[in-house]
């Protein structure tokens, strides 16, 4: 699935409305609640998207997935902690045959539930069961208006299927929520993508510029558009908003590499967002497992309330007392909380360093170099490493080290 969709804009949207706050103390002493629960129910996926944020070593986590009963228990426990928005994601969640049961339980518990899917595996029978079971909405990933780019970037022939699934979603009275990850190969089609979404009757479309984690970090030089392309895409989006008269809500997730301040990642570590992964790890963000010397709790052996409120991992980067310079004394630190800990570690080797996206970071040159590399024809011409089991096994075995050795952990 797409990281940007839940990692940034959604969290920001929540926060504007809820004003969740934390003054740098443990959640047990604050009102902090995991309002958003993301259930990454499987890492198996029929698509092989080059921009996937999932861990590159996901192949280790495809044999030890939680059972239906364990998921249901996790849903109950998270609800008690205040979780209310539920994302059922992956991988491709529809590869599990118990999503129907999970949906029914989510409804019973009062969640607003969202199935985040590529559409592969969605049948009339299943969508009817989801509707009957009380699933609130379905977020469908779309890739491009052209069959060529859709099939290329996902490394599958799924273009026709996407259109069919979009019609199925609409036909069952669901709101049409589209997510399009933006990269070099589709950024030139922004107007056409927006027109397509409008023609499909989309209520919401998220234009999520690729963020570089997992597979997309490995493929960063191959995926990154130019600053000029991003500016043009934003201009077209704004123009469409103003002129089209469309009721479609458009979210444009700005790519952090081209801004001079970092994103307030997840709206703060352990603030409003909790992920339970396919194997039961409980994380404050999608890629937290890249961080060194961290022991993340697992629903198989610890209570979810303890994980959220009291576990050392969830308290480690709450608030700002962990900060180093230049963040510690920065007048803007409350705006972004020093950015993303995973990005800092992956790129600088120090999770507590300022996010190198920040122009005040002593490591900002790493971002500038990455932008230059993406414009270097020799580097950009390296083949894309598609997200699939074979490549995951290769990365685990160290066979693709030339593509990952500049990073301080396996993305």
């Amino acid at each position, binding site marked *: 699935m797409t990281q940007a969709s839940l990692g940034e*804009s*959604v969290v920001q*949207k*929540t926060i504007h*409305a*809820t*004003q969740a706050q934390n003054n740098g103390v443990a959640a047990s002493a604050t009102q902090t*609640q995991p*309002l958003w629960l993301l259930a990454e129910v499987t890492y198996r996926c029929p698509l092989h998207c080059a921009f996937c944020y999932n861990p590159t070593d996901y192949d280790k986590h495809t044999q030890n997935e939680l059972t239906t009963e364990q998921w249901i228990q996790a849903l109950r426990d998270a609800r*008690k*902690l*205040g979780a*209310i*928005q539920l994302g059922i994601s992956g991988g491709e969640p529809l590869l599990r045959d118990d999503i129907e049961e999970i949906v029914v339980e989510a409804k019973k518990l*009062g969640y*607003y539930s*969202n199935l985040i899917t590529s559409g592969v595996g969605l049948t009339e029978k299943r969508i009817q069961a989801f509707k009957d079971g009380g699933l*609130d*909405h379905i*977020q469908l990933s779309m890739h491009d208006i052209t069959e060529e780019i859709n099939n290329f970037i996902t490394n599958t022939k799924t273009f026709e299927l996407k259109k069919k699934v979009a019609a199925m979603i609409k036909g069952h009275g*669901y*709101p049409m*929520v589209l997510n399009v990850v933006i990269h070099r190969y589709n950024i030139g089609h922004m107007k056409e993508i927006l027109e397509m979404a409008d023609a499909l009757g989309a*209520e*919401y479309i*998220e234009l999520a510029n690729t963020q570089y984690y997992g597979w997309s970090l490995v493929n960063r030089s191959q995926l990154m558009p130019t600053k000029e392309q991003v500016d043009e895409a934003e201009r077209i989006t704004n123009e469409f908003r103003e002129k089209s008269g469309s009721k479609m*809500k458009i*979210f444009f997730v700005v790519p952090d590499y081209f801004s001079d301040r970092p994103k307030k990642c997840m709206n703060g570590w352990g603030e409003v967002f909790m992920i339970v992964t396919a194997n039961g790890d409980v994380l404050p963000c999608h890629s937290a497992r890249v961080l060194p010397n961290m022991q993340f709790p697992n629903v198989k052996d610890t209570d979810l309330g303890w994980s959220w409120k009291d576990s050392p991992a969830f308290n480690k980067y709450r608030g700002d007392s962990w900060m180093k310079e230049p963040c510690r004394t920065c007048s803007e630190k409350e705006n972004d909380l020093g950015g993303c800990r995973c990005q800092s570690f992956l790129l600088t080797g120090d999770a507590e360093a300022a996010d190198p996206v920040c122009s005040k970071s002593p490591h900002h040159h790493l971002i500038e170099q990455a932008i230059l590399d993406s414009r270097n024809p020799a580097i950009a011409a390296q083949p894309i490493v598609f997200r699939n089991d074979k490549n995951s096994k290769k990365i685990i075995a160290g066979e693709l080290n030339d593509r990952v050795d500049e990073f301080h952990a396996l993305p």
Partner: protein
Amino acid sequence: MMDNQIQNEDIYTLAPHHRFQWEEAQSSYVILFPEGMVKLHGGAGEVIKRLDGKATVGDVVADLKATFPDAENIEKDIIGMYELALSKTWIRKV
């Protein structure tokens, strides 16, 4: 913008795909919708709670005035909440 002027005889209801519910964990009403949620503070929740697709704006104002007789200038706040909810597309006119 005549369309957005709240009239006494108008009837509003929650917009499609939006859900309104009491959240015990937060001791407040919330509106849930795809990709987001809004926590409603006291008075705002009381207004949305009354939008059943039948009550007119006038009915809602009268009901709230009766329920909260000590609240001053309540009508202005209620209309303000209608305007906000409409501009955010949380509600729609019946």
